[in-house]
């Protein structure tokens, strides 16, 4: 029996036992986030740390008398022991409900129907992965990174009869290849091989493509003075930029509560470029369409189009608070499956259109520097190049930028590539994340670099 099936069966049995213990007027949602993963960390193309994790996390949301308490815990897989633990928390929740103040924005727990997705996959045998690493070590490749692979399950039930689940077998190898340039400086190229079906030939093709970029990184780095430059942001760099929209950007609650970087856009003080179109598109099938309440999000939802915000993300709780219609966003009101529309800049024309400027493959450590003007800072990282007259001249010494999203995706956005890349999530805080983005590259004129 697959681990996912075992976790699913435990969850269903536990749900039935807990819901049968509820009293009149009480309602509850249970959510499961389970994984069975191998995490394999590499340094210098060798194994630094290997960790297998099997974890089963249950979240319970208990509502009664217009009040809400939320608990979560690690399950043991023993139905009897887990039931006793959850029932003890149910008793505690009942005690808390008696003394907590009423929550006027509570969303009722309702049956939003069934929704199930199962995405089986083929993972690599670890000895095969190790053998491949041995091959690249012999080729003197210096690789650091993380392989994560295994099964993931997300499931939701509630006391009104709702049952939804999403399972996926998948893997990623998120890696960097390092080299020394002629001046003795460390330079690197970043790669990501990810998917649901491991293919050794495809993996070698990915590695070959990445390794082919190393020789140019061996040439002397160019030091650039702070100033404004034309910039091409690769899809991976754009992925980082799009991430800023989920950090107090597209959340309606953040907008109303003074935390949104898009406030001036919402208020009509600025417009974005018509070339920039952003939507939530669950057609990527990388993450569940249901949220923590079991509400099923539309397959697609336009976020930004024609220079304006079409929709902010609105959870049911926010909708109640502000008397508006929600769109089944999750409580964090962050993008779960963002897709940026491609444009018409052909890959072969990127350097020619860039002319003289910077080709940025990756960004690092982005953070708001003036949130209410959508201004943020960050660093260039990995294979970033100085381009002159459409020709790559040299890798650069890393630079710090400080610029506004309103500029990057507004007046300065010149072109968007005609191909978008799917970039799977590699987050592993607490648990391995589901999800990903699909984004193209962008050409921007006049990005401000400061250090």
């Amino acid at each position: 029996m697959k681990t996912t099936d075992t976790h699913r069966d435990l969850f269903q049995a536990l749900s039935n036992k807990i819901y049968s213990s509820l009293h009149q007027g009480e309602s509850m949602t249970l959510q499961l986030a389970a994984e069975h993963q191998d995490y394999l960390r590499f340094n210098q193309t060798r194994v630094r740390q290997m960790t297998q994790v099997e974890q089963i996390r249950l979240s319970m949301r208990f509502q009664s008398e217009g009040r809400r308490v939320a608990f979560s815990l690690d399950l043991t897989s023993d139905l009897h022991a887990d039931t006793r633990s959850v029932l003890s928390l149910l008793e505690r929740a009942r005690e808390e409900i008696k003394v907590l103040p009423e929550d006027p924005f509570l969303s009722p727990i309702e049956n939003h129907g069934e929704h199930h997705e199962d995405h089986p996959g083929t993972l690599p045998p670890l000895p095969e992965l190790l053998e491949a690493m041995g091959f690249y070590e012999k080729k003197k490749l210096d690789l650091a990174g993380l392989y994560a692979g295994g099964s993931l399950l997300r499931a939701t039930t509630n006391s009104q009869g709702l049952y939804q689940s999403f399972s996926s077998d998948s893997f990623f190898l998120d890696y960097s290849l390092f080299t020394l340039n002629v001046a003795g400086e460390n330079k690197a190229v970043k790669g990501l091989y990810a998917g649901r079906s491991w293919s050794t030939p495809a993996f070698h093709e990915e590695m070959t493509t990445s390794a082919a970029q190393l020789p140019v990184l061996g040439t002397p780095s160019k030091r650039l003075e702070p100033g404004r430059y034309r910039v091409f942001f690769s899809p991976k760099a754009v992925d980082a930029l799009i991430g800023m929209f989920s950090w107090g950007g597209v959340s309606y609650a953040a907008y109303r509560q003074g935390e949104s970087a898009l406030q001036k856009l919402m208020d009509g003080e600025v417009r974005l470029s018509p070339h920039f179109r952003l939507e939530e598109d669950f057609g990527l099938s990388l993450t569940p369409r249901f949220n923590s309440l079991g509400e099923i999000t539309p397959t697609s939802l336009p976020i930004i189009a024609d220079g304006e915000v079409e929709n902010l993300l609105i959870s049911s709780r926010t909708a109640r608070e502000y008397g508006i219609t929600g769109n089944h966003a999750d409580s964090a009101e962050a993008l779960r499956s963002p897709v940026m529309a491609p444009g018409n800049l052909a890959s072969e024309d990127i350097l020619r259109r860039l002319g003289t400027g910077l080709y940025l493959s990756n960004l690092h450590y982005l953070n708001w520097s003036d949130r209410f003007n959508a201004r943020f800072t960050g660093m260039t990282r990995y294979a970033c190049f100085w381009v002159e007259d459409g020709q790559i001249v040299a890798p650069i010494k890393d630079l710090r930028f400080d610029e506004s999203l309103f500029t990057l995706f507004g007046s300065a956005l010149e072109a968007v590539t005609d191909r978008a890349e799917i970039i799977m999530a590699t987050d592993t805080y607490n648990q391995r994340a589901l999800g990903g983005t699909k984004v193209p590259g962008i050409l921007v004129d006049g990005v401000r670099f400061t250090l």
Partner: protein
Amino acid sequence: MSGPITMESNPLSYRGGNVNAPSLLITPHWPGFEPEKALNLIQKEAEWVGLRWVRETTQRRSARNGLPENNGAHFSFGVMIETLIDGHIAYAGTSDLSDQGLLRATQAAALKAKEMATRKAYAASIKERPTSVGRYEGPKGRWLDTEALATLSGHLIECTHRLKVSEAIVTAVAEVSLIESEVWYLTSSGTNLQQRQFMTGQHFGAIAQGSGETQQRSLNGPTARCQQGGLEAFDWDQLEAACEGVGEQALALLKADNCPNESLDLILAADQMLLQIHESIGHPLELDRILGDERNYAGWSFIKPSDFGVLQYGSPLMNVTFDPTYPGEFASYRFDDGGAPATREFLIQEGLLVRGLGGLESQHRLGLQGVANFRSSGWNRAPIDRMANINLEPGHSRLEDMIQQVERGILMEANRSWSIDDVRKKFQFGCEIGHLIEDGRMTRILKNPNYRGVTVPFWHALAAVGDLSTSNHFGTPYCGKGEPQQMIRVGHASPACLFRDIEVFGGAS
């Protein structure tokens, strides 16, 4: 502004039964588990076996704009098993604590250790897991059984009323976290360590809007106020009064001038020094970064192994310690997660880099001295080199004296923004509030104060270190690092400090 809480106006007044029930102490029915029996069961499955059992409760309680926002808790419970075979340690984490579950996890780890040993990065040994026996119980203070949930909830709501000094305050938030952590580490080589920590965190913040401007202000920044101990960290009379001050400052920032764009003298308060120490001293000194383990995620370090004992990191006024013994600081402990006894050590002495932040594995790999900082974020992650309490030792300057030394400068408080490059050199940080200093005195507040610099030149610009009266200990529960990623608690104690000729800048005009 609301008045004091009364039984009539308090929305939390108890609706029947014992007015004190329930208390803040949650006692769920934890699954039974006997770590010593479990070790006996699994210890023959490899050349050497370790078992780290973790049980942790984290409560989060918050209110926003006079209403409850979150009331919840997470209960973490599981083991991390370590197996050493052929010079490689592999790990398996599981919350299935049945005999079958433990054996399955141990055998999986043993199999992986054997498989990985052929491609291991270095040869591990039990020298990196010293035999230690002991217990540590951090300061507990007044613990959760002494206070009713309703009382805490009432205080949080009252704080949001106090923060909302005007209708221009669109968001007023009060939040606490209450944490109890137990770790029991046992090994087949005789280690038997039990450690318990009791911790609290608090955040009180206001966001003001008006005239096309939005500004935030909080008590010391959003995550800084965290420490070990109990509810004595919450002097509610003092906190409620402080919340009014926070609300007033958020309002005042709406009308303040932007921080200028120029190079001038900079005084950082202790609640910003924590971030400066964390990013530009703590991370670059981590030995696993220097070894390259972190190159694919958090990054490398500009520090080379040969820099220890040689590199003048900053001004001779600079003394930095790794101090797991600091009473009440957020990351105090007696042993790290590999069993190494934790002691206070100088990392930087009179500006000279003398020691790195690395546990026994990194120390053996590099042949350098380190500290006991091999730590994990929970039962489901393997230990790696982490910061714990990294402190800048107090100097002799009073705050007034430092201000008087400044002809034109800014005093910045409370971190708002942070970004630094992947080798920890070029940084840019922002604060919630700035105070312009002109001719030796503070004249007016400034909004959007930011500064940028490069690590070593910046620390060489350190011109005065505040005395104990300017010091405080803060921390964060959110230090991120590792593959797979781990969020861990760190503490930073520091006085206020004066830096000369720093590039500062403000927001858009």
